[in-house]
C-alpha cells in the first residue's frame, strides 16, 4: 500500500534532517552504520553530548502522562527530559481532533475517568464538569450510562485545559526540550544515545546519553485508501479527494455555497463526526448537500459471535462506546489480552476489532431525519476507480459484494477510514527495528513487554520503553487512549521503581500526592 504523510501541524517541520554543512559536526557514516555506539565513537564525531538519566521522545500526550506519573512517584525534574517538536503535549492531538471535526467545545470519545492530568481518574471529567458548570447533568449521565443515556464523554477543551494546569504543576516546561529526534542507539556499557536536532538551532545535532529511554511518537503516519492514493498521485488533486485527518474546511464551504454530492467513506467515529458536520450544515445553514455514505462492510444488525459476544449494530454501522470494549482497559478482556501470546492474542484483537462508532442519540436522530428527507444514503461496496469528470466532479466506479458494478458522481470524497501506516513510516521507529534490536508484535507494531519495555533493546542497566499507538498488538489493547497511556505510564513507573530509579507509588504516596493534586500544589 502506498503511503503518504499527511500534512503535519503547521508548527512541525519535516522530519528529515538537513544535510550536514562543511565542518559542522553531525552524524557520521560510521555512527549511522553502527548499531551499538561507544562513548569513543560519539566523541570522535565531535558531537556535543549531554547526560540525562532518562529521556522521553515524542513530547505528546504519551510523554506528558509518563512525566506526570514519574513526577508523582518522586522523580525530580532534572532526571527526565522530554524531547519533541511541538509546543504543548496536546498540540498534535488537538490538530487531529480539530480537523476531524472535534473542536474544543465538542466531545471526545473518551471515558470520564481517562484524565491525562489526573492519574487517579478521580474526580473524573464528569464530576469536574458538574462542579464547574453547576449542573448535575454530567453526574446523571455517568449514573445512567450506557443503559439510559450515551456514554459520558468530556469536551476536548476540558481535557486540554486540565493538561495545561497539570503541566504547570509538575514543571513540565522545565523538562521539555524542543527538537527533532533522528535516532536512538544502544550504548556499549549500558543505556542509550538519542541523537536530535534542537529546534532553536543552537547546534545541528546533539546527542543525549541516558540510562533510560521512552518512545511515544504517536501515529506512525496515516494512509489513504489505495484507490484514493492512486487518484491523488495521478491527478495531483488534493481538493476533491481529502482525508478527514487533513484540513478540508473548503469541502464544507463549497457545499454550503453551491451544494453538491459528497461521498463519506468509512464506518468509524471519524465518519460519524464528518457526517454530523455535513448534516448540521444542511439542517442549520441550508447547505444543499447530498451525502452518500460508502461502507465496505454493511452491518445489518447485531454482530453475534455467541450469546456472550454480541456487538450492537444496524443501518450499516457497528456500535461500540469506545475503541475497544470497556473491560479491555481493566477487566476481563484486559486479563485475556494480558494472558495471551502470539496468534491467540492476534485472534482476540481481530475478534474484538473492526470498524465501529458510538451509538449516540444525536447522531441517530440526524441520520434518521436525513434518510427520511432523502439526502443521506448508505451504500455498501468498494471503490474500483475514481476519475475526474469535467472540471469539478468525480466519477466513481463501485464494486459491491455481489460483484454488481455501479457508478456514482460526486463533488468530494472524504476518506474517514483512518488507516494507519506501518511503523516504518516513522524514521525513528524504522531505525529502532534496523539497529535498536526492536521487533514486531503479532499485529506488526512495536513489540513490547507487559511492562512496556521494548523487547530486544535492553542494555543493562538501561531500559527502553514505548507507549501509544505504535505498540498496538501487545498485551494491552487500549494503548491508543488517555486511559491506556496512563496504564502504560504506571507500568513503566513500576518497572523503573523496581530498578531503584524512582519510588513505587504505594498507598501512602498515592493518597498524599492526590491531596497535593486536589489543592493544585506542586508535587514536591
Amino acid at each position, binding site marked *: 500500500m502506498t503511503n503518504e504523510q499527511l500534512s503535519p501541524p503547521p508548527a512541525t517541520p519535516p522530519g528529515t534532517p538537513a544535510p550536514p554543512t562543511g565542518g559542522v559536526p553531525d552524524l557520521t557514516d560510521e555512527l549511522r552504520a553502527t548499531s551499538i555506539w561507544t562513548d569513543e565513537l560519539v566523541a570522535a564525531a565531535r558531537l556535543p553530548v549531554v547526560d540525562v538519566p532518562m529521556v522521553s521522545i515524542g513530547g505528546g500526550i504519551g510523554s506528558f502522562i509518563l512525566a506526570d506519573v514519574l513526577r508523582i512517584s518522586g522523580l525530580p525534574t532534572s532526571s527526565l527530559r522530554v524531547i519533541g517538536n511541538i509546543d504543548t503535549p496536546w498540540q498534535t492531538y488537538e490538530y487531529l481532533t480539530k480537523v476531524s471535526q472535534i473542536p474544543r467545545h465538542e466531545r471526545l470519545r473518551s471515558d470520564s475517568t481517562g484524565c491525562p492530568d489526573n492519574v487517579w481518574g478521580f474526580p473524573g471529567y464528569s464530576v469536574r464538569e458538574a462542579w464547574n458548570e453547576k449542573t448535575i447533568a454530567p453526574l446523571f449521565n*455517568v449514573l445512567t450510562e450506557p443503559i439510559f443515556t450515551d456514554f459520558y464523554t468530556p469536551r476536548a477543551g476540558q481535557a486540554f485545559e486540565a493538561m495545561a494546569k497539570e503541566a504547570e504543576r509538575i514543571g513540565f516546561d522545565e523538562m521539555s526540550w524542543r527538537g527533532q529526534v533522528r535516532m536512538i542507539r544502544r550504548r556499549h556499557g549500558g543505556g542509550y544515545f538519542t541523537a536530535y536536532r534542537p529546534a532553536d538551532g543552537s547546534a545541528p545535532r546533539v546527542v543525549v546519553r541516558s540510562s533510560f529511554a521512552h518512545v511515544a511518537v504517536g501515529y506512525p503516519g496515516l494512509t489513504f485508501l489505495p484507490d484514493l492514493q492512486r487518484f491523488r498521485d495521478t491527478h495531483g488533486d488534493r481538493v476533491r479527494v481529502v482525508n478527514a485527518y487533513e484540513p478540508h474546511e473548503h469541502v464544507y464551504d463549497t457545499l454550503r455555497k453551491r451544494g453538491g454530492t459528497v461521498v463519506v467513506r468509512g464506518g468509524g467515529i471519524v465518519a460519524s463526526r464528518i457526517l454530523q458536520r455535513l448534516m448540521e450544515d444542511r439542517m442549520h445553514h441550508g447547505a444543499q448537500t447530498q451525502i452518500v455514505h460508502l461502507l465496505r462492510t454493511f452491518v445489518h444488525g447485531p454482530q453475534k459471535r455467541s450469546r456472550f459476544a454480541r456487538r450492537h449494530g444496524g443501518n450499516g454501522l457497528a456500535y461500540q462506546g469506545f475503541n475497544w470494549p470497556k473491560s479491555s482497559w481493566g*477487566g476481563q478482556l484486559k486479563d485475556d489480552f494480558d494472558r495471551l501470546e502470539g496468534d491467540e492474542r492476534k485472534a482476540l484483537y481481530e475478534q474484538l476489532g473492526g470498524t465501529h462508532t458510538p451509538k449516540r442519540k444525536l447522531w441517530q436522530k440526524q441520520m434518521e431525519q436525513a434518510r427520511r428527507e432523502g439526502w443521506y444514503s448508505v451504500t455498501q461496496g468498494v471503490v474500483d476507480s475514481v476519475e475526474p469528470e469535467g472540471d469539478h466532479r468525480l466519477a466513481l466506479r463501485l464494486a459491491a459484494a455481489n460483484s454488481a458494478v455501479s457508478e456514482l458522481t460526486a463533488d468530494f470524497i472524504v476518506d474517514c477510514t483512518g488507516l494507519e501506516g506501518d511503523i516504518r513510516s516513522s524514521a525513528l521507529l524504522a531505525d529502532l527495528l534496523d539497529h535498536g534490536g526492536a521487533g514486531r508484535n503479532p499485529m506488526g507494531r512495536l513489540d513490547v513487554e507487559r511492562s512496556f519495555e521494548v523487547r530486544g533493546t535492553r542494555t543493562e542497566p538501561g531500559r527502553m520503553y514505548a507507549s501509544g499507538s505504535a505498540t498496538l498488538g501487545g498485551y494491552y489493547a487500549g494503548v491508543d487512549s488517555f486511559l491506556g497511556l496512563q496504564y502504560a505510564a504506571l*507500568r513503566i513507573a513500576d518497572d523503573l521503581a523496581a530498578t531503584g530509579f524512582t519510588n513505587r507509588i504505594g498507598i501512602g504516596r498515592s493518597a498524599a500526592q492526590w491531596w497535593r493534586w486536589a489543592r493544585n500544589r506542586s508535587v514536591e
Partner: protein
Amino acid sequence: MTPTLIGRIQTRLFLIVVVGVPWTLLVSPFLPRAASDSFLGGRGATSDLYPTLFAALGWLALFGVIVWEPLYHLAQQFRWEKDWPMLFGLITVVPEAILVWWVLDGEPPATGSTFVVHAVSTWIVMWLVANGPIRIFLLRWRFRGGRVFDGAAW
C-alpha cells in the same frame, strides 16, 4: 466499572471492612429504633443495635461472595463490553437487602426501619467510594478488574 469475578469479591470484602464497618459505627447513634425495654423507657441503647447491624454486614459479605457476585458475573457475560454500569451497582442493593433481611435475626431495639436506613445508607456510601475515592488509595485497582489484595503484582 469493569470487574472480574475475583475483583468483585475482593472489592466487596474490602469495602465492607474499610467503609461499611466505620460507617456503621458512625451512623448507628442516629438510626431509628424501638423504645428501650427498660423501666425508665426512652430510646434503646446504640450498643444494643450492634449485634444486628454487624450481622447484617456479615450476611452482606457472605451472600455477596457465594451468591450475588457469581450471579452478577454471569449476567456480565451477556454484555459485549464486559462492564458493570454504575446504575447496576446501585440498584442491586434491593435484592441484596431483601435477602439479608430475610435471614437476619433482628434483635430489639433494631427494627425494620433501623435495618432499611442502615442497609441503604451503607450501600450508597460503599458505592460512592467504589466509584471514585477508592482510586486515591488504590491507584492500580481500576486496571486490575477490582483486585485489591495482589500486592505488587499487576
